[in-house]
């Protein structure tokens, strides 16, 4: 069993309305020492695979095709083999 941890973020060039709103709200509420807000999505997938490389390949494909919109987003991930006890 492998566990994939996936981060999907907006490309830096894309203006993210969600991040903007959070930033503005923080400033308004007095948390004006916060200078940079990034809002991303985080996914965890548990999967079986023949080996680490196979798991990584599959996860990359799932990210590319489904979890991220490559027009506006980038993704990165890690895949780790899970301890048997889990």
């Amino acid at each position: 069993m492998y566990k994939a941890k996936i981060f999907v973020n907006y490309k830096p060039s894309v203006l993210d309305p969600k991040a903007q709103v959070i930033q503005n709200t923080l400033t308004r509420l007095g948390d004006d020492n916060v200078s940079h807000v990034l809002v991303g999505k985080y996914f965890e997938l548990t999967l079986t695979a023949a080996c680490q490389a196979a798991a990584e390949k599959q996860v990359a494909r799932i990210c590319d095709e489904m979890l991220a919109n490559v027009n506006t987003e980038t993704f990165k991930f890690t895949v780790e083999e899970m301890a048997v006890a889990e």
Partner: protein
Amino acid sequence: MKAAVISFPGSNCDDDLVHAIRDVVGECAVKVPATATTLAGFDLVLVPGGFSYGDYLRSGAIAKFAPVMAALKQFAQAGGYVLGICNGFQILTEVGLLPGALQWNTSLQFICEPEPLVVANADTAFSSRYEAGQTITLPIAHGEGNYYADPATLAEIEANHQVVFRYAHNPNGSLNDIAGLTNVAGNVLGMMPHPERAVEQLIFGTDGLGVFESLVEATKEGVYAEN
């Protein structure tokens, strides 16, 4: 004209489109499930509004994997007319039939209101019944209608005159006030406002009729009669 309206689980404007085309415009329209594998025999394919598969991941992101998508791509690549409205527009960008992406409205709120639009290009199969520069009012109803494309793509879109409708008072942060645009070939249109909700005087006025009448005209000319 024979129109197919693709009905995804979670689509909710499919019946409204059928009603507009069949009961108001007087042409043939049928619902086609997302499991369909062919779109042969249709002059026009409509991708309706709604929340396909709940739109939980990203609007349109899951619809992209529906079985009907292969047929839709084939239909579009062969030059067939495709109109995506609201969620349909989002889906068409997700599958790459249209450039760019639709992000959250800058207010982060869903917005439903009458929206004045300027017809930016009346030389398309979808807008020939309008005049360039004309202002029409259509309802919008979306949370993620904020059009984005990277600067190079945006420049291309403009150079090719792909923008068909622009917001007169940008409600959602769309770049270049884009409310609707076609692909380069001009046979695929995506738009956030709902023309099918504005085809009867009693309901919202008739400013949306032009889109369907333009398509009746275009399909009559047999541009794509062979499919």
